[in-house]
């Protein structure tokens, strides 16, 4: 099979071909085929992404933006082409609204630093939700504490849904930014982000969207959403690690100071002062993760060849199957049962430790994640230490879900005996 072959549009028709493109999936653990259900942590990579990175290092590795020779020109074109691809993928108005960084955490830290510096003062409020990942809690504490910015938390209900009445009442004149996740990495809750953005904008409050768990699983149109900032990671969308994107409207990027100084982000430098480069380079200091950006562009190609609506529809079916099957297990309690649900299925098993369940699944070739999933405040709300979490991707199958459920029942049985 030609690893660069673009897959057809129907996932069911091409499931075998799709799975064939992911080398990691084809191995056995203790004699059992690997069933990879830890996609919320990281997704596997198709050959087209692996080959794009390999080709870069084999054929045209060079530093970008500064060189006049052929290799540098080629590397620069490939890097900037990835930026254009991502802009198109999320329907950004301008490619210069796409800032490459290390990932979602890096992007949120950057906005937290820059937004604080440019706009926030003592007594201002940043509004987040109770289901946020630590990456959308701690940066606001670090960068806000210095100038007395308060972090306010919108509560959730027992199903893991955002309390929208509380959100409405918390949007007062002190709130200067809403920073919220699109899809919870622990609960699988899909937040009503269109409504959230509209409500915030009615009060001239900008919104930062953590799209880490959404970007590979649903079509996102930043202009339609009218979102001000959005962050996501390459490795959660079948791309390489070490690369991510901050999308921001150019009006915000023009007003915010850079968060890092160095090469490429400058226009002129003297010992007395420096002026900054135009967008997006103002926010991309130093030599970037060139190969990873190119790999991310290849991941976008891969997803667009299949189609985000196709992927979303298929994964919705898989998620329904998974949740329905988990509900049938007597000792199991689902953590996160929002009506609008995607991706992650978290649960606890009565009388059994998550790590024991996870280890016994591991021995059967089933990869899930156990623990607090970087959402410790959320665990406290549910009065648990952690969960077992299974999370899906486009290469998972209904058969894998059946095998996972069998493996889970087997693990429970072993622990009971």
């Amino acid at each position, binding site marked *: 099979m030609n690893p660069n072959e673009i897959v057809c549009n129907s996932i069911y028709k091409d499931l075998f071909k799709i799975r064939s493109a992911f080398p990691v999936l084809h191995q056995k653990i203790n004699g059992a085929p690997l069933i990879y259900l830890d996609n919320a942590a990281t997704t596997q990579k198709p050959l087209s992404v692996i080959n794009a990175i390999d080709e870069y290092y084999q054929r045209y590795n060079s530093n970008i933006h500064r060189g006049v020779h052929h290799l540098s020109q080629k590397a620069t074109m490939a890097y900037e082409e990835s930026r254009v691809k991502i802009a198109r993928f999320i329907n950004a108005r301008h490619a210069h609204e796409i800032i490459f960084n290390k990932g979602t955490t890096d992007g949120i830290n950057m906005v937290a630093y820059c937004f604080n510096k440019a706009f926030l003062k003592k007594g201002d409020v940043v509004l987040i939700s109770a289901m946020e990942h630590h990456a959308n809690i701690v940066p606001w504490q670090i960068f806000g504490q210095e100038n007395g910015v308060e972090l306010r938390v919108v509560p959730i209900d027992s199903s893991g849904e955002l309390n929208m009445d509380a959100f409405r009442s918390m949007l007062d004149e002190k709130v200067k930014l809403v920073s919220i996740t699109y899809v919870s990495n622990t609960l699988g809750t899909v937040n009503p982000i269109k409504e959230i953005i509209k409500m915030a904008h009615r009060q001239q409050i900008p919104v930062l969207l953590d799209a880490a768990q959404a970007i590979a699983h649903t079509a996102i149109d930043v202009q339609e959403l009218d979102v001000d900032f959005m962050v996501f990671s390459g490795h959660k969308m079948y791309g390489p690690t070490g690369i991510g994107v901050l999308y921001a409207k150019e009006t915000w990027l023009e007003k915010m100071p850079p968060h890092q100084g160095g090469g490429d982000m400058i226009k002129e430098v003297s010992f007395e002062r420096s002026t900054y480069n135009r967008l997006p380079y103002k926010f991309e200091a130093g030599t970037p993760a060139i190969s990873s950006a190119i790999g991310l562009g290849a991941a976008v190609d891969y997803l667009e060849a299949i189609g985000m609506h196709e992927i979303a529809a298929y994964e919705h079916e898989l998620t329904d199957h998974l949740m329905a099957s988990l509900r049938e297990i007597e000792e199991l309690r689902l953590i996160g049962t929002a009506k609008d649900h995607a991706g992650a299925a978290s649960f606890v098993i009565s009388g059994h*430790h998550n*790590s*024991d369940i996870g*280890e016994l699944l591991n*021995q059967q070739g089933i990869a899930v994640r*156990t623990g607090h999933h970087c959402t410790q405040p959320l665990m406290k709300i549910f009065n648990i230490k952690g969960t077992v979490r299974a999370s899906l991707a486009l290469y998972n199958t209904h058969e894998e879900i059946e095998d996972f459920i069998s493996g889970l029942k087997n693990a429970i049985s*072993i*622990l009971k*005996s």
Partner: protein
Amino acid sequence: MTINQRQDELIVRFSKMESWLEKYKCIIQMGKELPAMDDVYRKDANLIWSCQAMVWVHSEEKNGRLFIMADSDAFITKGLIALVLYVLSGQPITEIAASSLYFIDRINLKEHLTPNKSNGILAMINGIQTLASEGRLIAASCTI
């Protein structure tokens, strides 16, 4: 029996197990049979690991030997603890400090000793050996 004699005994016992299932059933059973630590010892000062699984360790020295009690809230961790205690508890302190626990690798449980493994077994072994060599039990940090 010495530390190494006990290790070799475990290696022989586990080598007769044909599958991962048999091995883990044995470990889980050992975990269930290991007596629960008295509440008086199951306290923060003895908590050397608090991550996905929690591990408490209490020890007493008698006549140059270290007698160790340990507990966990997860059965597999507790079973691995039982194996470590079988090998080390009651042994001379100087020998514990100098020991190399090769049995875990030899019974194909080496993956439980990686630093990012959240079950605390590596922390427990390091903690006991530090206790034996330096006289103080140091809690380890969860890396996840």
